[in-house]
């Protein structure tokens, strides 16, 4: 028989994304958490890199916002969830923005698509009224 374990949040924190320095803090804070929670070096590197991409998008395309970081537990399984929100102009065509190489700002256009590949789960919501929310999760 299989029991369904409930997903619980064991730890959470909100960090501002308003300046370039905040991007450094976001990376450092995510890395600290991951090493405290004993994620492997390769996982740490992937997650921090995704955080760096999404935080920069929130700052540069979304005009600033915040990141909510939560540690999840489902039974014995641990994961980390990062939620980036901003109140910027939103993304007009999400499927286009998710394509490799698509950029409206002279970037590499790999931030969104690359983060999706680096994480286990990827969710994006966007509208001109409410801005953009990107939620990514990676399980241990």
């Amino acid at each position, binding site marked *: 028989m299989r029991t369904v374990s409930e997903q619980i949040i064991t730890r959470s924190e909100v960090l501002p994304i308003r300046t370039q320095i905040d991007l450094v803090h976001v990376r450092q804070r995510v890395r600290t958490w991951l090493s405290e929670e004993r994620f492997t070096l*390769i996982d*740490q*590197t*992937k997650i921090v890199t995704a955080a760096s991409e999404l935080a920069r998008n929130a700052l540069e395309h979304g005009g600033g916002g915040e990141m909510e970081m939560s540690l999840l537990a489902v039974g014995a399984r641990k994961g980390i969830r990062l939620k980036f929100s901003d109140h910027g102009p939103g993304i007009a065509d999400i499927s286009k923005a998710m394509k490799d190489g698509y950029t409206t700002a002279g970037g*590499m256009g790999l*931030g969104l*698509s690359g983060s999706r*590949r*680096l994480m286990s789960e990827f969710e994006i919501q966007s509208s001109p009224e409410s801005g953009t929310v990107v939620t990514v999760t990676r399980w241990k």
Partner: protein
Amino acid sequence: MVKLLKMMRENQERLLTDWLNGLKAIAQRRDLISDVEVREQARKILTLISNPPPDTVLEDFSSEGWQTVRDQLMAISISRVAHGSSPSETAQFLFSLKPPMFKLIREQLTTTPDELFREIDVTNNFIDAMALHIAESYIESRDKVIARQQEEMLELSTPVVTLWDGILALPVIGTLDSTRAQMVMESLLQAIVQTNSRFAILDITGVPTVDTLVAQHLLKTITAARLMGAECILSGIRPQIAQTIVHLGINLNDIVTRSKLADAFRLALDRSGRTVTQKPGNHTPVTAPAAGVS
């Protein structure tokens, strides 16, 4: 108000003594600033407050008449930053003037309770305004110090090293944001021209995160170096960084890479027609000595 200032002038020595005693009682880290310096700062503040230009009122700390006090507070904040005091310790310096002032007002302004209350209120607000000003000045001074240190770090952390005649190495250390990337590129290009080098090794062992922006900057630098006639080798790519770059979808196919700086150096020697050999009978490999920083 005029009475209050007159009273302060007449009792300046006593105020100073009480204020300094109060400070001594709460001081946690006396070693930071000498008693002599604190006494001098307190005396200046008292003298300035009790002798403002005519028509200057305690009710308006932002007015022209208090400029000298504000300047003095700025000067004190700079000295506190240099001594390593905290912002709250710095503000506490002024808050400690409250008890002696209130005591004096209670003793000497024996008029109506209303007047007593008013004078205490005015004094209280004035000292708060000074404390706020010194706290803001403190932060401003500290930001200036940090900004200067960051500039120094920028220069320090982009040293171009000549490994061998015609072979440069640039170890990139820390976060490669746009400002840093610009500095890295400039110092590398300049060194290529100055030393007439044909090989440049960009070592990223010291870069904690390689995201798409960092990669874009690295690619730009490599392209620019190529235009100057130098071949670039990217080294110091750790396994976890290599995997992450692949997942991000960054294409480094056109870039010559080596995992270690030593391997990149060997490749550069090789390509420039030199070989590293081992002398017969000598079992430690001969390595090229590193030359100075240019």
